[in-house]
């Protein structure tokens, strides 16, 4: 059931468009991610959901109510800011109690709810501490406790982990997800970190240039990026510029690579995706390339020369030059290959993805 829904929301700053025609739906109980490079409009979108910015056009609905013009203090959403925005003049207890005091809750209830919120983030007994005495990770937890204490109808996160070091970030990530699950909250989470988004979110919208390019479950995004820019942003894809050769009636696409003059074949369900004689892109993940030392010249098998070998623990990355076409493969065993060796790279048709032009 849809809890939050944005319909064609747009926002300009001066004359620069920040968010253009964004529509999305967040289900109740869902952990929803907004993922994109910096400047893509994801934070502006989150701030519009929070009520901190007003959209120029479009509507925002929450639980069936239009909240587009509702002020932030009336929305009852909790927000965790990138720099935490803890009140420096208040101690930990008063920070967490802030939203409850604004609601004029009775003293006893405030004390009880603050204590339980601090227990939730594993910071009991920190009530009297000054916030500037806390480490970054602890400040982060206080910020989360403060947002959770008001029992928010929706929890908003603006890159909350970006100021933590790597180890702490991964640990906090797990706890965050567990906390949101345990409280049964709905959350919208903004990040530029693909790994973080994949690990945390049930569904993700990838944003670029103020628009949502694709929305889906992490696995769908990873395996089936719909557009070149999504494939590029999600990283580590071999992007191959090709020209379609076969006639548009065939369901088997025949493509010629612009570098290296190789022929690649793959089944394509939608004819209109690849107009004849127009350059387009095929994508394949490096772990989906098969590398063999010897091979027969057959369909989708490209002879190549090893250009670079990088050992990276469990896997090794092999950079290949197939007659001018640069490819990267991830393998478990480099199979005794050395730089300068010849080998064969197989690009399985079912793994090749035809990308939509942006």
């Amino acid at each position: 059931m849809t809890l939050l829904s944005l319909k064609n929301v747009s926002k300009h700053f001066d004359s620069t468009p920040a968010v253009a025609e964004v529509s999305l739906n967040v289900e109740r109980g869902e952990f929803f991610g907004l993922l994109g490079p910096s400047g893509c409009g994801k934070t502006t979108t989150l701030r519009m959901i929070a009520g901190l910015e007003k959209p120029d056009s479009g509507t925002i609905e929450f639980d069936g109510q239009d909240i587009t013009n509702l002020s932030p203090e009336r929305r009852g959403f909790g927000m965790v800011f990138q720099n935490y925005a803890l009140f420096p003049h208040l101690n930990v207890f008063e920070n967490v109690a802030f939203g409850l005091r604004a609601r004029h809750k009775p003293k006893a209830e405030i004390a009880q709810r603050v204590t339980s919120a601090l227990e939730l983030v594993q910071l009991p007994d920190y009530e009297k501490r000054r916030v500037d005495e806390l480490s970054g990770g602890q400040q982060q937890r206080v910020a989360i406790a403060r947002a959770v204490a008001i029992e928010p109808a929706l929890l908003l996160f603006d890159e909350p982990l970006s100021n933590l070091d790597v180890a702490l970030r991964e640990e906090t990530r797990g706890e965050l997800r567990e906390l949101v699950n345990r409280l049964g909250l709905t959350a919208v989470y903004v990040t530029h970190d693909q790994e973080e988004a994949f690990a945390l979110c049930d569904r993700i919208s990838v944003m670029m240039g103020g628009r949502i390019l694709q929305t889906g479950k992490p696995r769908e995004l990873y395996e089936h990026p719909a557009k070149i820019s999504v494939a590029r942003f999600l990283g580590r894809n071999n992007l191959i510029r090709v020209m379609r050769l076969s006639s548009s009636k065939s369901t088997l696409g025949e493509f010629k690579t612009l570098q290296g003059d190789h022929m690649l074949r793959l089944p394509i369900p939608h004819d209109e995706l690849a107009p004849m004689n127009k350059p387009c892109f095929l994508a394949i993940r490096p772990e989906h390339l098969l590398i063999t030392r010897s091979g027969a010249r057959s369909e989708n098998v490209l002879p190549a020369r090893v250009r670079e070998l990088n050992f990276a623990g469990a896997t090794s990355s092999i950079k290949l030059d197939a007659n001018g076409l640069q490819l990267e493969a991830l393998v478990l065993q480099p199979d005794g290959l050395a730089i300068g060796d010849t080998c064969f790279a197989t690009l399985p048709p079912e793994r090749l993805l035809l990308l939509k032009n942006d």
Partner: protein
Amino acid sequence: MTDQAEEAGSGSMEDGAGGDWETGRRGDGEKNTQSPNPQQPAPHLPAFPSPRLSLSPSPRLFLFLVTGVVLLYGVIYPNLHVVVSSLQRNNQWSLVNYREALSQSVVLESVFTSLGVSILTVLFCALVGIPLAFLFERYSFPASRLFAVLAALPLVLPPLVGTVAFIFLCGESGILARLVQLVFYLETPPWSLRGWTALLLFHTYTMYPFFYVLTGAGLRRIDAGLAEAGRSLGAGSVHVLFRVVLPQLTPSLVAAGLLTFMTSMASFSAPLLFGGSVRVLTLEIFTARQRGDLELALTETVILAAFSLGALTFFQRYEGTRKFAAAAMKGTGRRLKPITSGKARAAAIVGGVLFASLLVLPAATLVLVSFAQDGRWTTQTLPPAYTLANYARILTEKDASGVFINSLSMSAIAALAALVWSFCVVTLAMGKGSRAWKRLLSLLVLVPWALPGTVVAVALAEAYGKPSPLLGSYVLIGTFWILPVVYFLRFMPLVVRAVQASMEQLDPALEEAAGSLGARWWQRFRRVTLPLVWPGAAAGTLLAFVIALGEYVASVLLFVPSNRPISIAIASELRDLNLGAAAAYGVVLMGIIAVSMIIAAKFERWRS
């Protein structure tokens, strides 16, 4: 005699007042005048203030009304009135006032004299202030911190008090002159404190801190890593100075030059007391009004205002060019080079002690003279007899002590009103709105600060000295309230600056966090904004308060018996040759200022 206090006052506030909401670049550390301690670098602000949480329409309308009414009554109407009046003769539009004014050689001469004095003042102040800043910012030696703080002392000395102290110390019958006369058995005093030399000496003494403070702040802001990078690329230290350091310092130097220029153009007490035959424009306006030649006074006022506003325009433009400032925030820390060579160290200490005594001498003289028995100090080097009678008189005599009550209450009223109003203006200016509107607001707030006190006083006197369209039959001139109003107008830009600086330092996310936690605008202000900005705001308010306490330039044109302030009392004691009483007033004033500045420094420290 007192207007220098005002000048000094405007000097200090200039530091503070250069903020510009439109660019969000506030006055910059260098101009952080609300800090009584010039050594405290003002923290940097983001280049563009983030728009704050918007207010709901009704409080915003209220703020708009309050701000608009004050600006209309205090800034727009009086100044427009003066310009319009200067362009009319017998209710007919005409340039005849200007033709007549500019055809009088004495007017033209005073314009050129004012410009000449100001340009030379800038030059001398730069020669003193810039090397001092380099000395204290680059090297450390015993007690260098103390000397560094002392060097900014003249900023808080009321110009009138400074002038009086200068006369006692350096005047032809002052202590120094008598000492020289005694030592060399001279028949006549060795010099007279009159004319260009005296004026420039005094201006340099009171205004070099602009260069000193602004250059120092500029140097502090320059990333030491840049100079190191220059050195690592093979540039010698002279090359680094000219290619790396000075280009980044230029905006600070230009700003300091303009501030000094504006303050010098507004200078009134020093020319009045020892200008001699040097007739500057402020003095011409004053005497024209005394003569009753109102049309000439008005026309000269507009001419003087044009110079000040011209300088302000340049000043703001240079403010805006300081783009690299923020970029230099992160970087290599600057280390002071200790002076290790024994001779250089000794020279630095001796120089420092001499310099410090030079700065402290005028104030010390004032204290000494305040204990002198009036009438007994005739030809001796130092006063021969000492007494507490001067203090007893000014503190107990009803007429005399009344001026303290007047000055304290009027300054307090003005400063508190400025505080409340500043919150209105700054909240409005930091909210939503077009750039043009913010630029206009910022300019209107700055105008009374940039205008010489003489101009502000003349404008108010003209606008509200008779029944007016804005006040109906109520005539403000001649009432008690005219001086609090003048003090408010002249010094509110200081408070606005302080409040603005504090508010801009607030992370906008704090208010947003409060909003997202359910706090309404009033709760956000009371529970988040106010607790975090009050130390800075209070420091700015105190500064405005102490500067208003010593205000003379505008007071002398507008005071009435019911609101006679301290500065007027000092001037009239001096005229009656009650030197001891005049000095005692000055000492008490300095005492109040010192206490206030110490409190303000505490606030500043809390703020950081």
